[in-house]
């Protein structure tokens, strides 16, 4: 059942190629060599598109970042970095970011096992073609010594409006911190503009198997989902107020002339919450998430097809959201 708590799942593996210095000590020639090797290995697996950061415009780079396909570090701190992205955009392999290779899979909903399976198969292919730096004691060797072992980070993007609005997030962060999990705001923490989206991920990568890590993330997620569900029940005690907030959000989103990014994020979060309570009928929850991605500044610019000012972008965003919302969301009366 769709409970509008879990948005997406991501699993990443950090790998380095034996015999080469790590990226912060690697020259351009060797960086390209590694990217070429990764490209060659992945070709038979799927159709991957390669982008070298040095050839990418600021706008195109930011578009990829807003889609969570590359990190900010790859964009701004990795002059010889590259990324390979699968045709379905579920797999991205960053090359020469902090490590030579960062393989990641993003899937919608809670799909930890599926995400790991897919990235594990890609890792097998890469590992058969490139000799990974590995030691029996420390596992996969990484440029920062704190990432060694599995080199794995499993994270789940969660939508937690009730816990946030009721001021219970700090408590929740402490609870899962005890389970060695990290919680942080996807779009900046604590600000109302973040759309109540959080990333929950494992801290430990060594001394645990990949399955141990997946299990520990799952149990943390179960705990958080349960807390959020209880908080949502409490919120509903004042239903007229709650309904009013959600219907007003719908009203503004469908009628505004100008819409800034953070306002759009905030209001779309209320629509998502409305879908949970059944005040709004949403045809497919992933469409809501796509809408949020497309509302980000660089993606909005891409949609406009030309260079526009911040004001023009806000006008375009309002038109775009009103239009899309009409086809994805129906207000229930």
């Amino acid at each position, binding site marked *: 059942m769709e409970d509008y708590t879990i948005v997406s799942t*991501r699993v990443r593996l950090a790998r380095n190629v034996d*015999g080469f*210095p*790590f990226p*912060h*000590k690697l020259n351009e020639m060797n960086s390209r060599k590694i990217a070429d090797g990764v490209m060659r290995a992945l070709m038979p697996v799927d159709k991957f598109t390669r982008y070298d950061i040095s050839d990418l415009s*600021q706008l195109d780079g930011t578009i990829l*970042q807003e889609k*969570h396909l590359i*990190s*900010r570090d790859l964009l*701004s701190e990795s002059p010889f970095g590259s990324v390979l992205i699968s045709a379905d955009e579920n797999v991205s392999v960053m090359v020469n970011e*902090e490590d030579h290779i960062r393989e*990641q899979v993003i899937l919608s909903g809670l799909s930890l096992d599926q995400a790991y399976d897919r990235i594990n198969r890609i*890792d*097998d*292919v890469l*590992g*058969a073609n490139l*000799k990974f*730096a*590995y*030691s*029996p*004691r*420390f*596992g*996969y060797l990484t*440029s*920062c*010594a*704190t*990432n*060694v*072992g*599995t080199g*794995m*980070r499993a*994270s789940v993007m969660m939508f937690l409006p009730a816990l946030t609005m009721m001021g219970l997030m700090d408590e929740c962060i402490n609870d899962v*911190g005890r389970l060695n999990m990290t*919680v*942080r*705001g*996807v*779009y*900046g*923490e*604590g*600000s109302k*503009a*973040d759309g109540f989206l959080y990333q929950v991920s494992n*801290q*430990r*990568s*060594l*001394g645990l*198997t990949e399955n141990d890590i997946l299990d520990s993330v799952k149990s943390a997620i179960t705990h958080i989902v349960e807390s959020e569900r209880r908080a949502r029940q409490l919120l509903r005690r004042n239903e007229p107020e709650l309904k009013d907030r959600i219907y007003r959000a719908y009203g503004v989103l469908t009628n505004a002339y100008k819409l800034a*990014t*953070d306002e759009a994020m905030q209001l779309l979060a209320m629509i998502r919450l409305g879908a949970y309570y059944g005040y709004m009928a949403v045809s497919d929850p992933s469409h809501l998430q796509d809408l949020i991605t497309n509302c980000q500044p660089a993606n909005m610019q891409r949609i406009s097809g030309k260079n526009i000012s*911040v004001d023009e972008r806000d006008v375009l965003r309002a038109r775009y959201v009103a239009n899309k919302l009409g086809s994805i969301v129906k207000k229930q009366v």
Partner: protein
Amino acid sequence: MLCTKCGLRESTTEVVQRINNHIEKMYLCDECAKDFRPEAFDDFDVINKLIKGSSMGILSGLVNMLDAPTTRSLVCPDCKTTGDEFLKSGYVGCPRCYEVFEPLIAQTVKKLQQSDKHVGKHPLAANEDARGASVAVERERLRAELQSAIDSFDYKRASAISTKLDALDGKGEA
């Protein structure tokens, strides 16, 4: 200082974000500040950033200096990273560094990860579907584990591992 986002214009605004217990600062120009919503800090590692942001070398607090006075002054022959550099930054320069600074690294990761022994996937597993080959890999892994148990005087664990090794070779009660 230049804007940390676009790198083009002089910064005018300082933005501070809290991520768990750690503070991240950004300096933005007018243009970028207008558009600013805290960014998707998708996949970076909190511990790493803590280390990067600390000028004192956060790892030095985790190491018993008396245990490792010589390792600190060692230099990796392949990439020239020194033990001190590692303690200051948390970063090593190449795979070889892990051999050169093994005792230092073992101490720090043990404090941060509650373990200094990998138990997950190993690279050879990918190539070796044949059962015989994976037995060889498993034997290799257990031998390394046995050595590390002996090195740390953990004879109870060493004996358990050696029983597993015997079972793998078809000896013992299994």
